[in-house]
């Protein structure tokens, strides 16, 4: 089965305070850079076994929604390494886990 690289980018929802971003902003401003805001996200690279690119996208979206992002406070989007990934931002899914 072919392998596909998929990148899942996870970001804090805008409403959430980002203390790490605040710390970086403070240093950047201290250095004199004209930066007004910093938000720190996370980039997770997956190598997915799939029959085709669409299936790889589906797997990446599933793990992004179920595990990699916490829909309570984060959003995620797919950045396909071969240009086929869906670029749309995805709000977190519904309640998590099989019990919900």
């Amino acid at each position, binding site marked *: 089965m072919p392998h596909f690289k998929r990148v899942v980018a996870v970001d804090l929802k805008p409403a959430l305070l980002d203390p790490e971003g605040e710390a970086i902003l403070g240093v950047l401003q201290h250095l004199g850079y004209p930066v007004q805001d910093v938000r720190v996200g996370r980039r997770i690279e997956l190598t997915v076994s799939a029959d085709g690119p669409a299936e790889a996208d589906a797997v990446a979206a599933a793990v992004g929604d179920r595990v990699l992002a916490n829909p*309570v406070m984060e959003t995620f989007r797919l950045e396909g390494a071969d240009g086929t990934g869906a670029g749309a931002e995805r709000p977190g899914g519904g309640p998590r886990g099989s019990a919900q």
Partner: protein
Amino acid sequence: MSVAVLVFPGSNCDRDAVQGLSAVGLAAHRVWHRDPLGDVDAVVLPGGFSYGDYLRSGALAAHSPALSEVRRLARRGVPILGICNGFQILCEAGLLPGALTVNRSRQFRCTWEHVRVEGAAGPVWALPIAHREGRWWADAATRARVASEGEVWLRYCGPDGSLSDAHNPNGSLDHVAGLARGRVMGLMPHPERATDALLGGTDGVALLTAWAHQVGVAS
């Protein structure tokens, strides 16, 4: 009554939890996460750094097979108590509402704080906290639902029980220190570390005793 303390790789308050539960007369034992929980009357998820807290605090433990078993037990009404990392796991698993994220101060806070049990004339207890990701957050709709369902269990407060930012050690919304959804309960402070005067206080005994009575496992 038999209480299982579930041990993940990276848990580090499991022995303290067993000792603390014993201090209130409960028979507690540690169970490795890959072993069956068996026929237990309650499950405690102890503090620590399960799976190194990689991804997010408690996130990987929340998706582990052991948590599927905890979900099943919770559905049957078996009391579940998450302490610190255990609370983070329960929120990540969706068994408790909201999420616990980095303290407003950005610092790991290892201090004694006062918490007040929600409700009229709830007692005020002094308990230690030790965390970097203890700031409870939820969106407006979830906060409203938590309030209307009465799911706040504990709030950080001053020694007199008053609520103020000065007595909120991590910036938690609504001063939340602990939540309860039915018999699934979680808190950031460590009651098991406050069960001996030599260690600074015994209010943890009061909390664990109250918990055991509330969920019906008191001996």
